[in-house]
């Protein structure tokens, strides 16, 4: 079967969870696009380098706290509106259906808190989508939103685990997390047309979902009742000493 596409070979054994994932998630080779080294990609490359070595071995001292991290980009929705000094951009994140084996441990939103467009300087934040007109909202006022922490000169990360868990995580099927990216213009420049085309709509914010794979621990628990594994390890070392 040399020369046959690997996906065709995998399709012959679709029951394995690994193979099912590979077949479902892998983009079509024909639709291959060049990887864009924007901030989302840089962020994930740094996360990878912190968590694994060059050969892919997970680092012993990794602090990631999860076995899977998915970076979700917002849907390409660029319909921005202007209300006074505020420029508002809806951010819709499509969340895939939950899988029983994966447990959500954390969710954060990473966004630009400073946006420099030609001749304009804007201060931005992210908050839950609400229909009422904005006043002086701050991200921490949103229910389930924690205090944001600055991760670089222009980027901020904010924990929204509680917001996601309480709001829509347990709904079935595909769900949409609706947030809004709000930027405040400098006083005295209101009413001027902002060169939004300078800012890539996909590069102002992204969502990070941290999961733990419970599949392995469940399997282990089924095979070995609690404490038995430890007992066996202790016992085997005892046997070794006895043999000696």
């Amino acid at each position: 079967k040399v020369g046959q596409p690997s996906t065709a070979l995998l399709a012959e054994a679709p029951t394995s969870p690994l193979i099912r994932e590979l077949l479902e998630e892998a983009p079509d080779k024909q639709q291959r696009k060049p990887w864009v080294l924007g901030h989302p990609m840089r962020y994930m490359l740094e996360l990878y380098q912190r968590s694994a070595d060059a050969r892919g071995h997970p680092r012993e001292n990794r602090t990631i706290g999860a076995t899977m991290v998915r970076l979700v980009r917002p849907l390409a929705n660029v319909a921005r509106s202007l209300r006074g000094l505020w420029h508002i951009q809806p951010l819709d994140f499509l969340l895939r259906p939950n899988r029983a084996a994966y447990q959500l441990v954390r969710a954060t939103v990473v966004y630009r808190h400073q946006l420099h467009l030609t001749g304009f300087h804007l201060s931005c934040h992210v908050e839950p989508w609400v229909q009422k007109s904005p006043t002086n909202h701050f991200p921490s006022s949103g229910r389930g939103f924690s205090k944001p922490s600055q991760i670089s000169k222009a980027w901020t990360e904010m924990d929204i685990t509680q917001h996601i868990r309480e709001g829509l995580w347990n709904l079935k099927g595909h769900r949409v997390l609706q947030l809004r990216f709000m930027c405040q213009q400098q006083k005295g420049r209101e009413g001027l047309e902002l060169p939004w085309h300078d800012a890539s709509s996909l590069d102002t914010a992204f969502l990070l979902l941290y999961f733990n794979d419970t599949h392995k621990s469940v399997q282990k628990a089924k095979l070995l009742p609690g404490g038995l594994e430890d007992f066996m390890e202790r016992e085997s070392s005892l046997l070794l000493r006895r043999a000696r």
Partner: protein
Amino acid sequence: RAGSITSKIPGPSQDHDGPESNQCSLHHFQVSFHQLGWDHWIIAPNLYTPNYCKGTCPRVLRYGLNSPNHAIIQNLVNELVDQSVPQPCCVPYKYVPISILLIEANGNILYKEYEDMIAQSCTCR
């Protein structure tokens, strides 16, 4: 008691167990994701070292091979009772995970630790 059973089995011989270099052991093996046809979506690592186990299983399974009791009995059955029952095979015993960074069909980026992706030691079972 085990000794009295195993003593009936002839000792290791070159013709049955093969030369020492052919004994069941872990072999280093590296492959690129390009060779597997996955380089269009796997970003890191560049190379994958799954390794593999190869070689002949000895007739008397020594302790270091971590063979289960069943493999020891199967060897005895092959030797003493019925040669149509095969000898144990040389297979991976312990594995380690690998972290992969990949880009999904919808443009999302995924970091994931996959269990049991690299063979670390071998056993006869």
